């Protein structure tokens, strides 16, 4: 995606000087990041560096110790519960392990946000669910329980659930973790297609270079509690910065 001047000003997610510690362990230490409407930003970094923690601040699952996190102008630390619910309805979250409720079928899992928070009829809900399952290429999963789905299918159903409310922002927590390269590539292309077709803003946490190449408009390395080397995927991968080269070395091999 090419940034127009208007888009560059149109920040939808903003981290400013965000600090977060768990006990004595400082995870985020002055994180600054602006994500523009419609772009897909990827966060890379070593395990345990705070990538998922960053993501959780955006949707209000965690609150920062210092600094501000703003989503579409709302300060996530002080947003009233009612406004948070409304804001969350405009966001989708794809969990690392899909986090499907194991006692509900895939169709019921995808339908859950609509059944619980909207007044759509059952017929309308079923139609929307089937549309989303078709969109993420698992139309046959509707009647299946999560235990009957493969890892890749679970991720796709999780993606369909995140999409069911037609969100403006989708947060992806390791969308291809634990999947083989072929399925990973397929899911990455699905995410890219969704971004292009639906014009949603994406924030993707990933370990995979393949993911940032296909999905990302921009990418940054989260290390030492701050985001560094923010650039396009091509520039990121071509960088000669020693820290980045060291981090990417094994993965490029």
């Amino acid at each position: 995606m090419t940034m127009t001047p208007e888009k560059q000003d149109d920040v939808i997610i903003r981290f400013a000087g965000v600090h977060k510690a768990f006990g004595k362990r400082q995870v985020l230490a002055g994180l600054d990041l602006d994500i523009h409407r419609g772009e897909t930003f990827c966060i890379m970094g070593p395990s345990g560096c705070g990538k998922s923690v960053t993501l959780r601040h955006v949707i209000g699952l965690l609150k920062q110790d210092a600094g501000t996190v703003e989503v579409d102008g709302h300060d996530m630390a002080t947003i009233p519960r009612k406004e948070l619910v409304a804001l969350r309805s405009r966001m989708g979250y794809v969990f690392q392990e899909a986090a499907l409720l194991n006692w509900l079928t895939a169709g019921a899992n995808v339908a859950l946000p609509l059944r619980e928070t909207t007044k759509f009829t059952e017929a309308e809900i079923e139609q929307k669910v089937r549309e989303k399952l078709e969109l993420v290429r698992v139309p046959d999963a509707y009647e299946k329980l999560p235990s009957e789905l493969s890892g890749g299918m679970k991720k796709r159903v999780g993606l369909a659930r995140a999409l069911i409310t037609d969100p403006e922002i989708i947060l992806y927590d390791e969308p291809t973790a634990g999947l083989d390269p072929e399925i990973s590539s397929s899911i990455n292309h699905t995410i890219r297609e969704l971004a292009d077709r639906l014009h949603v803003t994406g924030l993707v946490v990933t370990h995979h270079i393949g993911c940032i190449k296909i999905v990302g408009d921009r990418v940054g390395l989260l290390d030492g509690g701050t985001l560094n080397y923010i650039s396009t995927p091509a520039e990121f991968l071509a960088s000669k910065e020693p820290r980045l080269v060291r981090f990417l070395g094994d993965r490029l091999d």
Partner: protein
Amino acid sequence: MIPGFVAFLQDIGYLLDLFFQVLQRLTAIVTRRALILEQLWQAGIKVVHVVLLVGVFIGMIVSLQTGLELARFGQQDQIGTIVAISMAREMGPFITATILAATVGSALAAELGTMAVSEELAALEVMSIDRVALLVMPRVLALAIMCPILTILCDTIGIIGGGFVADSQLNVGLSLYYDSVIDSLQDTNFFLELPKDVYSGLLKAFCFGVIVAVISCGAGLRATAGALGVGNATRKAVRDSIIAIIIANYFMSWLFFQA
């Protein structure tokens, strides 16, 4: 010492808050009826055989132990009275609640704990879905309903088991045994047309069901740190439920029979 006491108070506070949240969600009974029926099946029908098996042997033990002592004084014709009152007031509700804590409560804690550590609860939060209304209220309601029903079964089968021992081993005829049972469960203090020994036991069972469900759900919802955390939550649910049942039992007994 002090941090432990603070943690204990926080625990109590959390569970009371959870209980009051459940009360607020009772208005959603109609919309959650399918989930409630499912939980009634899980919390009740699936453990009936355990309650019946334990109940009959408890009745037989009470009958045998008290019967042998009463026989020394030639008072074995009072066995029916003692078995009936023991089962209705104490043994029935306590044994039933303990079985529910060990079977259903542990399963609740493990189920919700697994949901917590596999991010399913976080997913509900992200989707702004009320997890108390979806997960906790149906389970609390199911146990609150099923515990008294199972207690009635436990009382009944325990009294029958006691009668079998009285007849076969203590030479107390069945008709004498059951006459003394009926006599002992007469009371002028009626509530819902029930003798005090029975309704006090059923009210205890209702409270025990709520206690087991709230403690077990609370333990599961707060599980962390993977499989180990789920194991800890399950152990905590059973341990705390049984301790709470015993403490509540004393105060309710005092309230009904001494206050």
